[in-house]
């Protein structure tokens, strides 16, 4: 009983804005995951590394006196490079997609340590630096992160409507058709992977500012959180909008997915579950949301159902014959 007495709804309410701010930033990361996972059809595990790279680059450059916008630009560029490496491992060296991502991810662990001067974490004081987002000022953070998300959604919406963006979508959808129509699918793959990890690097840069530090383990599980946001957003979007879903709204729902994911995390923490179990919990959420469309489809189209229907048909025939 004392457990429930200790659960104060007000605490949850207080935690909510922080969850939203974090959710938006992870949602930006999830936009990157969306580009590879959904548009390119490439499960890119680089992001666990490139997210932390974005964090490390932003913190180290800011500490060195570089203005924040410039530091974020470098974070984007560092992410782009990481994506480029994965892309080349896959296209130039013929390494399978998942493995290419894992190789870059593991290599980035060392790279990130080097960036942070071999320290496992580095603090970034919000008092000393004029950070764009910070948990010391959550309303401002929500506003800024929200503006970032909006700008990026507009940019992606535009880009994937261009000739080049369309060729990336075609590559993800049908490589044979793409080649037959003169698309260099190695180029489009590398391009999409770079773009995706650039977004992830930017999200890392924002997250490092928000939390006020960079940690070598910060990107661990980023891919799963990204997938969670993408899939929660999709399931929700399809449920609410059904046929009115378009590309821009899909991207908006990816951000929403990120927010919802973090609200759920907020609830878990509020329930005073051990925060070390969060990763387990995340995996369960993602598995559940991945399973929803499949199970829904199977319910409509299962052998169990046809078995029952067949019995009814047999009954009806028997009645007729009698």
């Amino acid at each position, binding site marked *: 009983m004392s457990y429930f007495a200790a659960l104060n709804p007000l605490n949850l309410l207080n935690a909510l804005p922080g969850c939203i701010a974090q959710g938006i930033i992870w949602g930006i990361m999830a936009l990157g995951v969306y580009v590879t996972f959904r548009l390119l059809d490439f499960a890119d595990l680089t992001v666990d590394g490139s997210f932390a790279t974005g964090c490390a680059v932003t913190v180290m450059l800011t500490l060195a006196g570089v203005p924040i916008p410039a530091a974020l630009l470098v974070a984007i560029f560092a992410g782009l490079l990481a994506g480029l490496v994965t892309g080349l491992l896959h296209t130039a060296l013929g390494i399978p997609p998942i493995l290419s991502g894992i190789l870059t991810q593991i290599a980035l662990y060392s790279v990130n340590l080097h960036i942070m001067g071999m320290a496992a974490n580095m603090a970034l004081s919000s008092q000393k630096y004029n950070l764009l987002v910070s948990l010391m000022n959550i309303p401002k953070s929500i506003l800024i992160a929200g503006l970032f998300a909006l700008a990026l959604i507009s940019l992606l919406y535009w880009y994937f409507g261009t000739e080049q963006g369309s*060729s990336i979508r075609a590559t993800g959808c049908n490589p044979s058709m793409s080649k037959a129509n003169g*698309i260099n699918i190695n180029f489009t793959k590398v391009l999409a992977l770079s773009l995706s990890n650039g977004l992830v690097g930017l999200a890392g840069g924002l997250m490092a500012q928000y939390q006020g530090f960079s940690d070598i383990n910060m990107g661990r599980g980023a891919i799963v959180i990204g997938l969670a946001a993408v899939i929660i957003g999709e399931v929700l979007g399809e449920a609410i909008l059904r046929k009115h879903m378009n590309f821009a709204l899909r991207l908006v729902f990816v951000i929403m997915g990120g927010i919802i994911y973090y609200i759920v995390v907020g609830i878990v923490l509020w329930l005073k579950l051990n925060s070390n179990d969060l990763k387990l919990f995340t995996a369960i959420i993602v598995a559940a949301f991945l399973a929803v469309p499949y199970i829904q489809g199977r319910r409509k189209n299962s052998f169990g159902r046809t078995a029952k229907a067949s019995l009814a048909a047999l009954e009806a025939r028997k009645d007729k014959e009698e």
Partner: protein
Amino acid sequence: MLNIIDIHKTFNLGTINEKSALNGVDLHLDKGDFCTIIGGNGAGKSTMLNAVAGVWPVDRGAILLNGQNITGLPEHKRAGFLGRVFQDPMTGTAASMEIEENLALAARRGKSRKLGWGITKQEKEKYRELLRVLDLGLEDRMTSKVGLLSGGQRQALTLLMATLQQPNLLLLDEHTAALDPKTAEKVLRVTDQIIEENHLTALMVTHNMKDAIAHGNRLIMMHDGRVILNIAGEEKKKLTVADLLHQFELVSGEEFASDKAILA
């Protein structure tokens, strides 16, 4: 126009699955030729088309198109000269993209894709007109996903895509084999129409001897990775299925190996 000079291709060289698919194919097409290709299973028909399309490099020989040596060009670079329709209706179109988006992608075949709009308003109008001519009711479904179309509709769309930008050579790889007879006939009619209207040069692989005889001005038969029969002009017009079977037995010393081709 198209000059195929002594091309060879062996798959899985040096393994237990070694298969020599092309053993010195020679073929010359003039501009405006519509050549049908017939042969039993494993004769090398599709393999020859893939060699021309650049799906993989050939082991030996040369392929010239309009006098240009394209033997060393990768698939996406040759695509600028070639229109292609495949056997599987799924292969030629992007299922999760809209009809008009597929057309717009095909309209940019061989051009560099930059940051201009992927599809313009004028294009949409043009596509609507072209689809109306196809007469499959697709002109009112321009923003539908291609995955919703039937096999026949997808093949007709792929044909349109392949010829949207006039190709130097149209490659049709058994593009009606996966369709029911009635739809196949319709797609073949559209094929004839498009080839005639645009004065295209075309290679069409088919399993169906009757179709091979009825369409085009030339016919070649392949066997064991070689061209064993090359018929053109008046001789082709008088050709019958029985003639073809007889010729095949004469040249190859075997019976024709595909019931599907004879009975169809």
